């Protein structure tokens, strides 16, 4: 009889679906990995040059200032005698033209704000004028589009000085230039040779500050306050000008540039002998020349200077092409009037020849440097990369003005003769390199290179800090403290369950531990942070004591048990003994609770938390506590090695109760010796000058690694326990039977037969627990304080990779740098756990095979 066709087809379909479905698991794991890698990879991708244009503007005179809008649509060039040309950046078509009336004076200095739309001109007659050279952006709906538009290129159309660009929504972005010149202000009788200009305050009440240097090297700082009359709308400008203390310059030395900070609290003057002079203007009534510092090597002139956005870093370009970055750091030095000094913190790849122009990006720590040979290099300062190496074409000897477009996606350069060169590029994540992620970086405002994670800050101007090291450190710290608690408890409990209790006890205990495994970690985290953390803080003395009281109590119980006559001990062995152990735990906890304050008074002068800050006392008491278990182990081990033999001979002949009495005496003697030894070693360490405070003990925070470690152990214990118990249980019964038959006690059988056989399985259980601890999120988010600091202090908080993702990813912009770095954090976690789990699984598979062979 033939098989029905439907059955054959059903068979084939089922087989195919199930095989494909089964293999989907592999696809899922590798799919996750590949997807994470795909998101992360663009972080490492470099920028891409998209094209460049070059054309000549009809400026006739030398170009002194240039600006471009953020869409790279319009450019503005100002020529020396006041002609302002607005042009279309991609094609060079002139859009509109204006003429500034400088009143016959000649421009001798020019400077602008960070946004480049507010410009100050200094003239040879000692006056200063301000101009607005910006762009106006509007949106025009499609139906309101005027007629008579001229096509400029594939994208843009023009009409009457306005450029229309279609955007994604179907409407048109309309751009036009805003060109206005203000009144002249007389600052000096001499020509102005350098000027800088800052606009601060709010949009409604702007404050204007500018600094000038005249031909006699006299530095002046002026501040203008604009008040708008609410009734008339008229603006009143009041300007106060302060002359700063004179610069002590040598003969023939000239000022090359001046920089003013945004809120006008410092000014920096560069001179052509390689010095910078820093003024402290925080008190405008008594300005001070705070510091004079050589920033270039001997005989090398400072040829260009600029602040990076945020004004924390000063970039100095030298005659020899060097590019260095200086931070003003609080060092407490007596050499300057305000205890701060300019410190050379970064050295960027030098330009091939003298730096002639530096211009900073508006929203990133980027700058463009132009050298005398026409090389145009775009640098990123934080990540210390040369992003693009461009070169001018044409006559490179003429001077030029360069700028970075506001979105950091292009550079425009106008030479003196009016020749424009513009480059357009894309660069996705210039602030991230492997060195930024995993190395030490000297960040703005820091005293030295460090690992810092601080991805977001209040303003755009702050430097994002993307070091994963503090997070990896936090992850390892949390996991290791958790394992410190979890591994011993879980393993000992597992051994006890599998080797020493009744089958019925095991049948109730094991599901209970499995239940514990399924407790939601959000609940554990909540209890850790809102219940446990305040309790531990309040009762820190009792908690510390508890760590010693618990083992001591159990030991005491054991030695007392040994004193029981054999029949009694046998009768109550098993469950009653287990209840007694639990009771012993309660007793020790009660003792710790009551004696905690006494211990704190006795060892830490009554206030442990203050002791940790290092304000008083020595490190002895804490080291004594830490060394106590260690010295007990040492003492009992050496007793066993030297006298153990004789001791066994001594008590071996007596009956058990008597032997037990002797043994408890031995134990008490050992304990006393251990206490003495521990105290002696701790004192010795103190004498040698060692103090744990500042290391693994430091000032106390409520949400700390101790609490996290403890609660995370609570989450990890069931994992390790069940897996280890399974492994121990898988050891074949005939091994135990053989061992017991040879006369070994259950204890000896457990320790020397079962445990070594199951060792690899137990080890893999610990690894799996470790994997879980590494990835645990909610407990850490809630109870760890989330400060990304790097210290082993058990009483301080931490931030792990997982917590960091949970906190920052919901707010991260898709495909932004932070988004991708957080994906990298996830990938790091994935790889860490992947390695741990795969190893554990391989070990386990091997163990299984071996266990079957036995």
């Amino acid at each position, binding site marked *: 009889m033939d*098989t029905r066709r439907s059955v054959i087809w*059903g*068979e084939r379909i*089922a087989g195919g679906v*199930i*095989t494909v479905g*089964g*293999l989907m698991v592999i696809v*899922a*794991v*590798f799919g*996750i990995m590949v*997807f994470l890698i795909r998101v992360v990879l663009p972080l490492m991708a470099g920028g891409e040059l998209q094209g460049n244009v070059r054309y000549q503007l009809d400026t006739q005179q030398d170009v002194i200032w240039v600006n471009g809008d953020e869409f790279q649509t319009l450019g503005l060039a100002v020529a020396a005698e006041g002609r302002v040309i607005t042009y279309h950046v991609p094609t060079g078509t002139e859009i509109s033209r204006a003429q500034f009336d400088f009143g016959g004076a000649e421009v001798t200095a020019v400077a602008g704000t960070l946004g480049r739309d507010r410009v100050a001109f200094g003239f040879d007659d000692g006056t200063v004028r301000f101009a607005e050279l910006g762009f106006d952006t509007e949106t025009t709906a499609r139906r309101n589009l005027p007629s008579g538009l001229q096509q400029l290129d594939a994208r843009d159309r023009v009409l009457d000085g306005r450029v229309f660009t279609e955007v994604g929504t179907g409407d048109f972005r309309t751009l036009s230039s805003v060109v206005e010149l203000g009144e002249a202000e007389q600052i000096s009788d001499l020509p102005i040779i350098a000027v800088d200009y800052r606009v601060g305050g709010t949009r409604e009440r702007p404050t204007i500050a500018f600094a000038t240097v005249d031909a006699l090297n006299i530095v002046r700082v002026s501040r203008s306050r604009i008040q708008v009359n609410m009734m008339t709308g008229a603006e009143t400008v009041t300007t106060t000008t302060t002359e700063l203390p004179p610069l002590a310059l040598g003969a023939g030395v000239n000022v090359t540039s001046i920089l003013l900070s945004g809120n006008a609290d410092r000014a920096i003057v560069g001179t052509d002998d390689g010095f910078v002079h820093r003024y402290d203007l925080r008190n405008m009534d008594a300005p001070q020349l705070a510091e004079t510092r050589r920033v270039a090597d001997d005989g090398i002139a400072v040829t260009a200077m600029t602040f990076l956005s945020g004004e924390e870093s000063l970039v100095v370009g030298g005659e020899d092409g060097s590019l260095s970055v200086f931070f003003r750091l609080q060092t407490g030095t007596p050499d300057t009037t305000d205890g701060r000094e300019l410190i050379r913190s970064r050295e960027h790849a030098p330009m091939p020849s003298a730096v002639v122009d530096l211009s900073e990006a508006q929203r990133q720590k980027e700058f463009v440097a132009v050298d005398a040979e026409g090389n145009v290099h775009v640098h990123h300062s934080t990540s210390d990369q040369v992003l693009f190496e461009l070169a001018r074409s044409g006559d490179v000897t003429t001077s030029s003005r360069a700028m970075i477009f506001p979105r950091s996606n292009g550079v425009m350069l106008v030479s003196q003769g009016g020749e424009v060169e513009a480059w357009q590029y894309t660069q996705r994540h210039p602030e991230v390199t492997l060195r930024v992620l995993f190395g030490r970086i000297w960040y703005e405002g820091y005293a030295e290179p460090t690992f810092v994670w601080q991805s977001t800050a209040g303003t755009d101007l702050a430097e994002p800090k993307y070091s994963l090291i503090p997070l990896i450190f936090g992850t390892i710290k949390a996991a290791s403290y958790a394992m410190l608690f979890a591994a011993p408890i*879980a393993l*000992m*409990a597992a051994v*006890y369950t599998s080797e*020493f*209790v009744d*089958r019925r006890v095991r049948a109730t205990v094991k*599901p*209970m531990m499995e239940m514990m495994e*399924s*407790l*939601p970690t*959000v*609940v554990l985290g909540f209890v850790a*942070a809102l*219940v446990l953390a305040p309790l531990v803080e309040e009762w820190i003395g009792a908690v510390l004591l508890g760590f010693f009281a*618990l083992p001591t109590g159990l030991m005491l119980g*054991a030695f007392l048990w040994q004193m029981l006559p054999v029949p009694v001990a046998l009768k109550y*062995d098993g469950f009653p003994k*287990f209840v007694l*152990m639990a009771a*012993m735990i309660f007793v020790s906890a009660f003792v710790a609770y009551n004696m905690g304050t006494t211990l704190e008074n006795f060892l830490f002068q*009554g206030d442990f938390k203050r002791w940790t800050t290092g304000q008083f006392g020595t490190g002895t008491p804490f080291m004594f506590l830490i060394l106590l278990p260690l010295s007990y182990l040492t003492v009992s081990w050496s007793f066993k090695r030297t006298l153990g*033999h004789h001791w066994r*001979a001594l008590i*071996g002949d007596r009956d*058990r109760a*008597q032997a037990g009495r002797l*043994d408890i005496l031995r134990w008490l003697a050992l304990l006393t010796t251990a206490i003495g030894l521990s105290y002696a070693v701790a004192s010795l360490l103190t004498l040698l000058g060692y103090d744990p405070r500042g290391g693994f003990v430091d000032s106390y925070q409520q949400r700390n690694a101790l609490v996290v470690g403890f609660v995370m152990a609570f989450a990890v214990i069931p994992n390790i326990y069940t897996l280890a118990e399974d492994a121990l249980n898988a050891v074949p*019964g005939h091994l*135990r*039977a053989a061992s017991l038959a040879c006369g070994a*006690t259950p204890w000896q059988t457990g320790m020397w037969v079962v445990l070594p056989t199951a060792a690899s399985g137990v080890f893999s259980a610990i690894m*799996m627990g470790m994997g*879980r601890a590494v*990835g645990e999120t909610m407990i850490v*988010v809630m109870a760890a304080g989330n400060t990304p600091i790097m210290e082993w202090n058990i009483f301080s908080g931490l931030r792990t990779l*997982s917590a960091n*993702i949970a906190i920052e*990813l*919901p707010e991260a912009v*898709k495909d932004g740098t932070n988004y991708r770095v957080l994906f990298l954090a996830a990938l790091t*976690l994935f790889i860490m*756990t992947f390695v741990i*789990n*795969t190893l554990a*699984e391989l070990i386990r598979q091997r163990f299984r095979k071996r266990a079957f062979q036995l």
Partner: protein
Amino acid sequence: MTVSTEQDIPASGAAGLAAVAAREATAGRRVRRFSSDLSAVGEPALWAFGGALALGIILVAGFLAMIAWNGFTTFWPKPVEQVELRDGTVLAGVATRGGPYRVGEDVLQRLDDTQRAEIEDNNGIANRTLYQTANFDLYGDDFRWISDFEVAQSTTPPDYWYFERQVWGVFIGRIAGLTIDGESRTLDRALLAREQSAARDRFNQIRRLEQRDIGRINFQIERERLAQRRAVLRHGEDSPEAQAAVAEGQARIAEWQDEFRVLQAQVNELRELDRRYRIQMQEVGGREVDVELSQIVRLFPANDLGIFDKIGIYLSRWWEFVSAEPREANTQGGVLPAIFGTVAMTLLMVVFVAPFGVITALYLREYAKQGRVTSLVRISVNNLAGVPSIVYGVFGLGFFAYTMGGTIDQLFYPENLPNPTFGKGGILWASLTLALLTVPVVIVATEEALAAVPRSMREGSLACGASKWQTIRYVVLPKALPGIMTGLILAMARGAGEVAPLMLVGVVKLAPALPIDGFYPFIHLDRSFMHLGFHIFDVGFQSRNSEAGKPMVFVTTLLLLALIVTMNATAITIRNRLKRKYADGQF
């Protein structure tokens, strides 16, 4: 095999024997009944091991007991105490918790000598109590610590009332007056209870009108707007089809808006009426607050309650908790949306995880040849189980929400762009993410269940001429079904308790709408949702006053734990029963 310790007699170890033998050789032969080589028994180590186990059990039990105690006592009405302090301040509040604390130096300085001596005798430690003084709108704070040494006198006057308000949280004080239908009335408890209940009905009526009826109109108008936009996008702005659609849509919107105005008038009328029923409450210091009676969710004379009144309040609070929406930034009211979100998400997750998990287990047990590939699959399963849950969240956000959801939006919901429909976290993506996370649980459990199906049954089926798939379909799977169910329940328990990945893929602190409602298409898989676990995190850590939210957190925790423990206990029981059944199920 487990060795029962009852048979073991302290015997000497091998080393002990050797020592004894050596001694015997010199001292001549002697017969002993037993030796006391204590180190062979390892009693101290045994106690350490057993202690570890006991500690684990104590921790679990203590933990559960603490949650249960705090959770179950939260809703029990407690008396309002009027506390007079030594400095003359009088305050009224409910004692919530207390305990000893270390008195600060600056506080000690301000005390008189006897008080200071008393504290110093006690090692610088004093007792204090945290009072819920409530009245946040007047005091700017809900709680106050009072140290025992500050208290001059504490009484429980019977005329204090405990008001639970719709906004501003709890009010504690006396009733100064009652206005019923614009007339001032004397306080009569029966009248008050009746009127309050009537006022609540009015409140709920207004709410229903606003949320259900007006909500429906808003929903329709929004949909109409999107339909117009879709027509415009499809046919072009100036096309006749689009213009027809727009005109038609505008007409419909106008109709809806007429209806909206009618409803709004109704609401205003009710509001007007509602304003005529008021209550004047007076706090302990004498300041009065005058609110609509409908703003009082529950009120009771806290110090004048019989045991049945208390039980009534206790039960009514529980009922509110499981059946109402949250108020006061989630710190009061109920958690119905969170329960609903948790259950809906978990069930949806099971829909995804069940086929995937069962198919993989079938592959591993029935189809694949044991070898390299299955070893790789097993390693993968293990890795899926071991990868931190937050990584799944990251993957879910990046792949499901942004990549898949973004594509769906572009293909099917272009009219709503740039607002995402599926291109953000939502219940669908959350359940898919959790399905990925819980699939190993199902695989392992199903595999166990399949392995437990006796070989003889399969062979019997095959021998009768059934094909492999027929055998699986009609013999193996039915037999393994309870085991598979166990796996699914365990997966649900795991999924219901997981919070970290959900924070990335669609859980919110307050969802404006449930994922399932009465509007077409009834199941809105793109919506974000509330979740019990996230509720705990949110109330405990992100609300203005975590102390005020703490009781709520405990109760929510209790609910979540009860849910999970029940599921787990069921699964474990089924499993144990199965094991027993199959242990002698071979035939």
